[in-house]
């Protein structure tokens, strides 16, 4: 603006100068001054006109034309709202879905931790057990071993998340907390916002201190410096707040924000342990991070870790009993993973599903581009006449091309805006889905790089499709097109190609959707050995630990109270819940069974209260349930699963046999039907149930606490969750230091364990359906357009005696010609791509004929239906009208 004003002033003064000089020359010739100026002005001519001409020279012609082009494009697009809505929605979905999923991937694993010094050099060091976990926690002894021997990393530290029931200033609250070893803060390069952070000195002896997060400082203390020196009471221990973490630092777990942090040296006092965690190398409680030394690559660090861990493995394997455990242990590996975004837990959980989803939405974007290109092409062909008119009245090739570009630009812009809105919504929906009923503090703000990337791709698609007619417009000679002879357009074959591409992509997505949905159905119909409907489950939280006698008292009181609640038919407790992933294995020695070398001599244990089988609905096939007479002092008894009995007792009657484990010999008093524990996909374990009060083999301090059990109640009918309020009220009456935590139904629990499968089936199905709709629109568009172009050909056919059926068949043949190659290509792509999703499939293979047939069938029926409308229109063509049309 400023520039423009200056330009105006300069123009003015240049013209002034000229007029002044002319005036002077007339005065020199003896003219009167006034008359001379008048003459000079006259001679200069229409000064305003000249000024306008001058401005024209400077004003960018291009910009003015562009504005005109855009306005014209907006007018034309408004005239076909159906086309506009369809194009914008397709583009928006493509852009939005890609942006949302990439933003999540970015938030989970690519975005560096804020505030932390040089996060790119951080690594997480964990164990990897094949087919079990990629980021298994490590033990304290292994941490020390690594810390003292690895030369490629420095600043090694460990973290453990701890339970979170605290009291501050007399107020109870639930928070997230961690215990960390001393090197943690210096390795992360953090400076306190107030007070001090934890350091190596806190490792030496138990120091009851805590560091709070900046956010907690603000939330709980309003940034008041007096917070330092206050106490956080946790597990009957007062931790003095000594400092505040820097602003913006949210902890090192991307899935939760921690509120306070205590030194690792407090583990025993906070967790009621006896230092076992520090000595036992098989207690894997910790997550370890370290910083790569300057110049060391992660590959080099991994090489060193592999060799150091190799020595440790050989060393420790000797301590293991029996070759089976040794062989299993020797398969373990240790490795360093990038830690720039913090710990890898969620990354490991979600990298595969998100990767597959990214692939799916990339296909959706491709589909959107193909669809849009097809639509634009069809549209352009139907505008040949308009193009010819514009050429006839003098529009240049460049100008015409620019006109089409402007339309593409406008479409892409609208699509991008829609995409941004969809990305926001979809991102939030995804996080809710992934949080799975919990809280997941993941930022879902759209990632601008991917937004720009997908936007650019769609823009390219628009330009490509918009330009094709623009360029061929140059080839349209004015005359024939004006006469509207409906000669086949040059991009008819391109249009067909695009439809085949759309059908192929849709087919691929539909097959994928079919596979994921069938997987989910198969998982839900697996025989689990339990009836999971109608069961209410909850855990307990307590402010401190209880002595063993009190524990048993509380536990029994809770189960008794549960049984007295209205509508409850059975109530029990167990330390392992069916179908939720946990497995507690111990070595067993069944009476009269000899293990051969290398055979697995472990069984899954479950410590249960009476009525367990009543609650889960697992039938007892032989013998009896535990009862009130199976006390701590009574002789130990056990119930074994069918598989256990078959494996160890062969055909012999199992009742009355004995099984020894951890120096206790149990008498088998019952056999239960098999039930699944680890998950729906896993097999049934050889299970041995023992009464929860018979813990004679445990040292007193190791005996279980009421919090170690999950409590279950079966209701006769209705929603089990109605027990929640009753139980929440009852627990503090039994023990004031305790309250109910994590109430839910077993069904919900199991559903949550299938999060990934449900996510893939839901989103796979959603995108499959979307693809179907888009493909139908595509085929409808191209056929409708072709029918309208062939109006007079069809007219001639009808005039020559073709029946309506012939005409319908003619058009439908066209559909089939597109459908067949589309389906075939799509099927091949789907089978090839499905290999990447194999680990998500259950009960189906990537070449599942049912999924393929279902996808092909759905696609065929939908596209034929989409093609039928234009076919009907073709059949209704009146030959006379069609021929007169030209």
């Amino acid at each position, binding site marked *: 603006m400023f520039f423009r004003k200056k330009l105006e002033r*300069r123009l003015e*003064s*240049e*013209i002034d*100068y*000229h007029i*002044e*000089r*002319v005036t*002077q020359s007339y005065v020199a010739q003896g003219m009167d001054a006034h008359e001379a100026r008048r003459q000079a002005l006259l*001679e*200069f*001519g*229409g000064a305003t*006109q*000249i000024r306008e*001409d*001058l401005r*024209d*020279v*400077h004003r960018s012609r291009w910009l003015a034309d562009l504005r005109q082009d855009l306005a014209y494009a907006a007018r034309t697009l408004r005239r076909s709202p159906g086309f506009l809505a369809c194009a914008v929605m397709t583009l928006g979905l493509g852009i939005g879905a890609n942006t949302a999923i990439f933003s999540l991937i970015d938030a989970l694993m690519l975005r560096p931790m804020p505030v932390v010094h040089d996060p790119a050099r951080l690594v997480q060091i964990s164990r990897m057990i094949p087919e079990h976990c990629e980021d298994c926690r490590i033990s304290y002894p292994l941490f020390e071993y690594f810390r003292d021997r690895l030369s490629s990393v420095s600043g090694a530290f460990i973290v453990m998340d701890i339970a979170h029931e605290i009291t501050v200033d007399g107020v109870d609250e639930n928070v997230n907390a961690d215990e960390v070893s001393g090197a943690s803060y210096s390795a992360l390069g953090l400076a306190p916002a107030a007070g001090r952070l934890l350091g190596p000195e806190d490792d030496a002896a138990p120091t009851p201190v805590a560091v709070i997060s900046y956010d907690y400082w603000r939330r709980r203390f309003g940034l008041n410096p007096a917070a330092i020196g206050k106490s956080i009471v946790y597990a009957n221990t007062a931790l003095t707040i000594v400092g505040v973490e820097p602003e913006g630092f949210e902890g090192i777990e991307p899935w939760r924000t921690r509120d306070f942090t205590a030194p690792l040296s407090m583990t025993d006092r906070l967790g009621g342990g006896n230092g076992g965690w520090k000595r036992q190398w098989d207690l894997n409680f910790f997550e370890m991070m370290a910083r790569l030394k300057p110049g060391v690559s992660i590959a080099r660090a991994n090489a060193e870790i592999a060799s150091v861990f190799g020595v440790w493995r050989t060393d420790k394997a000797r301590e293991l009993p029996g070759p089976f455990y040794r062989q299993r242990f020797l398969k373990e590996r240790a490795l360093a993973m990038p830690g720039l975004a913090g710990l890898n837990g969620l990354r490991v959980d979600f990298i595969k599903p998100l990767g597959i989803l990214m692939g799916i939405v990339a296909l959706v974007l491709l589909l959107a581009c193909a669809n849009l290109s097809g639509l634009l092409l069809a549209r352009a062909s139907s505008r040949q006449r308009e193009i010819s008119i514009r050429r006839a009245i003098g529009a240049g090739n460049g100008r015409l091309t620019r006109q089409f570009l402007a339309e593409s630009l406008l479409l892409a812009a609208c699509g991008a805006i829609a995409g941004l809105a969809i990305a926001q919504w979809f991102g939030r929906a995804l996080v809710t889905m992934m949080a799975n009923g919990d809280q997941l503090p993941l930022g879902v703000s759209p990632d601008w790089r991917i937004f720009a990337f997908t936007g650019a791709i769609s823009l390219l698609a628009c330009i490509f499709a918009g330009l094709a007619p623009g360029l061929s417009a140059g080839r349209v000679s004015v005359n024939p097109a004006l006469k509207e002879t409906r000669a086949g357009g040059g991009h008819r074959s391109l249009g067909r190609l695009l439809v085949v591409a759309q059908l192929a992509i849709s087919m691929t997505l539909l097959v994928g959707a079919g596979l994921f949905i069938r997987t989910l159905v198969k998982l839900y119909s697996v025989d689990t050995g339990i009836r999971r409907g109608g069961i209410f489950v909850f855990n307990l939280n307590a402010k401190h630990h209880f002595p063993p006698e009190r524990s048993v008292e509380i536990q029994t009181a809770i189960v008794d109270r549960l049984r007295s609640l209205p509508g409850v038919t059975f109530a029990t407790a167990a330390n392992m819940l069916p179908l939720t992933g946990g497995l507690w294995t111990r070595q067993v020695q069944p009476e009269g069974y000899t293990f051969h070398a290398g055979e697995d001599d472990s069984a899954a244990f479950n410590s249960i209260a009476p009525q367990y089988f009543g609650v889960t609905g697992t039938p007892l096939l032989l013998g009896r349930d535990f009862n009130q007479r199976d006390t701590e002092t009574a002789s130990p008894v056990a119930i074994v699963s069918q598989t256990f009995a078959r494996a160890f007792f062969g055909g012999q009657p199992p009742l009355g046999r004995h099984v020894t484990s951890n120096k206790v010999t149990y008498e088998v008093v019952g056999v239960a039907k098999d039930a699944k524990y680890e998950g729906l996909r896993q097999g049934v374990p050889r299970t041995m149930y023992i009464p929860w009060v018979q813990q004679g083999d445990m040292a007193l301090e190791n005996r279980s606490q009421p919090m170690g059990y999950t409590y279950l109640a079966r209701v006769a009918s209705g929603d089990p969750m109605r027990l929640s309020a009753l139980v929440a009220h009852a627990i503090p009456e039994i023990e004031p230091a305790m309250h109910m935590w994590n109430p839910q139904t077993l069904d919900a629990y199991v559903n949550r364990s299938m999060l990934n499968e449900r996510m893939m089936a839901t989103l796979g199905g959603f995108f499959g359906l979307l693809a179907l709709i888009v493909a139908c629109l595509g085929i409808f568009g191209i056929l409708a357009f072709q029918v309208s172009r062939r109006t007079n050909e069809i007219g001639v056919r009808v005039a020559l005696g073709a029946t309506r059926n012939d005409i319908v068949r003619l058009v439908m043949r066209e559909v089939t010609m597109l459908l067949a190659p589309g389906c075939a290509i799509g099927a091949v792509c789907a089978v090839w791509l499905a290999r990447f999703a194999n680990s998500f499939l259950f009960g189906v293979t990537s070449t599942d004929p049912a999924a393929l047939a279902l996808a092909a069938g759905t696609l065929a029926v939908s596209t034929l239906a989409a093609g039928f409308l234009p076919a009907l229109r073709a059949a209704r063509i009146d030959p006379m009208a069609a021929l007169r049309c030209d």
Partner: protein
Amino acid sequence: MASDKSDLLQGTLDMLVLKIVALEPVHGYGIAQRIQQISREVLQVQQGSLYPALHRLEKRGWLKADWRESETGREAKFYSLTRLGRKQLDAETANWDRLAGAVELILKTAE
């Protein structure tokens, strides 16, 4: 008097302007004067086309302009030739020579 004056041929104004500016930096009024003087008052330059032409040439990078004090003591916009402008002038001169030669040849042969 007016009938003796000829309007400039379309397209030749640019060439004349370049030629005059090539001699020394000069302002718009000066250019109009020079064209008239050198052509012995035959060629009449319309100010209406001179100034847009100057600005166009400047925009194309053939001329550059700066404001300095003129012979009357007042600030004026002086145009001078750029290297690109010099090239353009050579090209247009050569072109003109060829064209003029051809026209002359035709006129002579036709006699």
